[in-house]
């Protein structure tokens, strides 16, 4: 049983989804979905706890690698799967009241099925060692997320989903083209196998084209500036629960795939020395951070504000990855985790506002600090995390990024990074002032505090941003181990 865990992570939610559509009873399906999510979370916890004995390789159907599909669990994939399934579980626990209000009752079972499929896709992208499989899971998660987004209440939701679908499909297609080219050159789809055969053909133009297609494809899915245009609308018009889950996990899994692409399939030498991807990444990240943060400042809808902030935060992760040393990579991976918690938590707060106030315009939130004190305070704590105040998770990643930038003597990067984090102060504090110092709007005046069923999960996530701000053994510690093994793998490949 224990050795089947890697495949169960995928099989359980994948099989559950169609089954739940057949069951069709919305209360029962809700309970079962929660059960499945927590089970998957339990499995990822036990997978991660097994990492101290070394990485796990699981051959699907008993076909030996590289002929069959392999599932690989190492520190990085276990870590990413852990927070994807963890947030998936906590968000679905938080979800029922919010979904009741925002999604039509007839669609509930479909909603839960899509939610499970989306999670399956994201987990699959993490665990699989087969490149074509990555594409398949990417499409599973993308298609289900288009469906989830289109379930939003307003008529703009389907439009936003369509926009995302068109751009997302372009991204996925680019990724597929890259895979095709790689397959043509190496004759294999197994990642480790590709990596070992790549040296021979590394200098060919086809490799460059393949790499370029895959990178741009993933950039679209990550919403790297300037390929981010699908994200603000998708996040804004999706149901609150969907935004919580997707914002916390989907872009991070694409970042994960990108890390695999650079550090496992190709090599940092190929990406950063043969190609100037590191300086390009730094430039795109920094410009993106500034532009998206500045855009966030001028938003009038709280969800859209957070969406732009997400675009900016992706920049910090890429900055860390582009440094291609242990410190930078640790910072990038840690920020994936920390930002998942912070942004997931903040979107959960927004979900509470959406439930009780019914509007997400900043002007309607005025004075909500009086009528919804607990929800508003959660915003303050989560916001402090996003700003990166000490003793919050955001500080940990910012500090790691700063010290690693300075150890590489990247002075402009360090200074710009710090300055950009001041923009976060502006957009977070603008909302804080609206919540606490403005005369109440007529909607906020009559609002009640959010129900405990939503507040408790929200506070668990928000509270964990404080916990992981003070105690980093299981965030930065694991990220460090993951970064070391990633760089170790490339060294063992004998490329240096």
């Amino acid at each position, binding site marked *: 049983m224990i050795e089947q865990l890697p495949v169960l992570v995928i099989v359980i939610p994948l099989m559950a989804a169609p089954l739940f559509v057949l069951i069709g009873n919305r209360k029962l399906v809700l309970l079962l979905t929660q059960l499945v999510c927590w089970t998957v979370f339990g499995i990822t916890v036990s997978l991660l706890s097994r990492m101290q004995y070394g990485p796990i390789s699981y051959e699907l159907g008993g076909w030996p690698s590289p002929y069959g599909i392999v599932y690989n669990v190492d520190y990085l994939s276990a870590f990413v799967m852990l927070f994807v399934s963890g947030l998936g579980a906590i968000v679905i626990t938080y979800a029922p009241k919010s979904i009741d209000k925002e999604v039509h009752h007839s669609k509930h079972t479909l909603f839960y099925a899509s939610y499970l499929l989306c999670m399956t896709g994201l987990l699959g992208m993490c665990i699989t060692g087969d490149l074509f499989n990555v594409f398949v899971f990417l499409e599973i998660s993308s298609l289900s997320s288009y469906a989830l987004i289109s379930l939003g209440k307003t008529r703009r939701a389907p439009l936003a989903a369509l926009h995302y679908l068109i751009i997302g499909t372009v991204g996925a297609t680019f990724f597929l083209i890259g895979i095709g080219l790689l397959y043509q050159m190496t004759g294999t789809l197994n990642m480790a196998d590709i990596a070992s055969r790549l040296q021979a053909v590394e200098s060919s133009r086809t490799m460059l084209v393949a790499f370029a297609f895959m990178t741009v494809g993933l950039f679209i899915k990550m919403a790297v500036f300037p390929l981010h245009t699908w994200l603000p609308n998708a996040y804004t018009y999706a149901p609150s629960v969907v935004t919580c889950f997707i914002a916390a996990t989907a872009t991070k899994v694409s970042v994960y795939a990108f890390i695999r692409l650079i550090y496992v399939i190709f090599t940092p030498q190929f990406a950063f020395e043969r190609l100037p991807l590191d300086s390009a990444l730094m430039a795109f990240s920094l410009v993106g951070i500034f532009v998206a943060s500045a855009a966030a400042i001028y938003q009038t809808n709280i969800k859209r504000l957070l969406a732009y902030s997400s675009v900016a935060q992706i920049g910090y992760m890429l900055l860390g990855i582009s440094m291609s040393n242990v410190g930078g990579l640790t910072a990038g991976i840690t920020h994936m985790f920390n930002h998942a918690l912070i942004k997931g938590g903040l979107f959960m707060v927004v979900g509470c506002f959406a439930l009780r106030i019914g509007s997400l315009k900043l002007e309607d939130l005025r004075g909500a600090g009086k009528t919804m004190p607990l929800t508003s305070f959660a915003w303050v704590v989560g916001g402090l995390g996003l700003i990166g105040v*000490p003793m919050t998770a955001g500080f940990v990643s910012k500090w790691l990024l700063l010290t690693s930038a300075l150890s590489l003597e990247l002075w402009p990067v360090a200074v710009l990074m710090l300055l950009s984090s001041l923009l976060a102060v502006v957009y977070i504090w603008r909302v804080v002032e609206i919540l606490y110092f403005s005369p109440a709007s007529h909607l906020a005046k009559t609002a009640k505090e959010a129900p405990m069923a939503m507040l408790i999960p929200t506070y668990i996530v928000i509270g964990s941003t404080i916990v992981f701000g003070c105690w980093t053994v299981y965030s930065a510690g694991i990220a460090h181990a993951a970064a070391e093994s990633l760089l170790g793998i490339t060294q063992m490949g004998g490329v240096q």
Partner: protein
Amino acid sequence: MTPENLIWIAMLLPLVAIVLVFIIGEKSPNIRESCTIGIAVTLFWVTTRLAGFVFSGGRPSFKMGEMLPGFEIAFTVEPLGMLFALVASGLWILTTVYAIGYMRGHHEKNQTRFYACFASAIFAALAAAFAANLFTLFVAYELMTISTYPLVTHHGDEKAKKGGRIYLGILLSTSVAFFMLAIAWTWTVAGTLDFTPGGILAQPNIDGKISDFQLSVLLGLFAFGIGKAAIMPFHRWLPAAMVAPTPVSALLHAVAVVKVGVFSILKVSIYIFGIDLISETRLGEGANPIMMSDWLCYLAGATILLASLVAMTKDNLKARLAYSTISQLAYITLGAALATSDSVIGGGMHIAMHAVGKITLFFCAGAIYVGAHKTNISDMRGLGRAMPLTMGAFLLATLSIIGLPPGGGAWSKWFLALGTVQTGHFWLLAALMISSLLNIAYLIPIPIRAFMTPAGEAPMKFKEAPMMCVVPLCITAVGSVALFFFGNEIYDVLLPIATSAR
């Protein structure tokens, strides 16, 4: 109890206070405030016990653990931090008593939040005072900014919002843009962030990891990054913070918050750079190379004079006191920048002397507001007849702020002046003298006018503020004079911080 345990007990006490204040809440304000006072008294007792160990040469330390790989939260108590902790915890008792009189006399809302945030600010002050490394200090520093924001914006109106915006804006941006960068840079070149007698930057300087000029830039990042020291041009947050209720202005914006700022600057100068490194590193070629911290000395001197000049133009008493504080803080920064043993001791002494004097003045301002509803100095003519105790205390504290015997401030200013002479900064000596004259010009007229009612005007009836307000301010006024007679003891206590560098 071993001194190691006393450290965490001292820091735990304010946290206990926060919890108790929230549990008891608005239901029974009397019990809530007695809890705060009880804990404040216990805390003061604990810090005096700890002081006994530290002042006799002990350096107890306590490790919390690693917050990030390689970056520890750890505490080590040395004399300077001990003195600061003593001052903060002692004045917390008096301020709480005073706050009861003020907040109730004034029917303020949200008192539970008020006392809870107050306790958390005290926690941050203690954590900063005991910090064993820059990382811990930075965490405590930022914690203090955040925990005092609700106090500054206590009234929740438009004015409070604006004040809070400036407060948070300046303090957060300077600390993130400069202070954090400076710490990370220090760590990159020195490989450690521990406060070490003699400093940690001398060796990297010899190894060529950081040049003399870069040292000067790094000092600048620290001096501007520690915005709480209110060096011009980053001083605007302090007058903005005056929208807070007066007890906040008294304890936090005359003692805890601002003193964390100058305390951090002193710590950086003594234990990160080392005063020898600052005073011996010269920039420029030729016969008269300048000290690397010269620009900071002159900037501090300019802040001393300019802030005093601005104070003269303010008619609102709290605003005048705020600018006076900016000026007095720059004295301490000057002490750190001059980097002689007398000047850093003078700076350290001034933390205590100015704290007791300035808190008295703020207590008086609050008492006048509660008792007579006056905020402007021009309206305080003849007030001495109505509030003789308050105005008498004001006069005593004024002596200490100006630096006239028998005020405690006389000693610290004396040692700072010695520092300017020892390093040959005669212009700065002149600035100190002029500033003292300016202090006389903007502070003394207030009590004088209050007592000398022009003939013909009907003398006001005796009407002091509530006893809860008046008693604490009388105690601190007497304290500011009493400190004059303990000048020698404080000097002896602080001597190790300057000599351990040799």
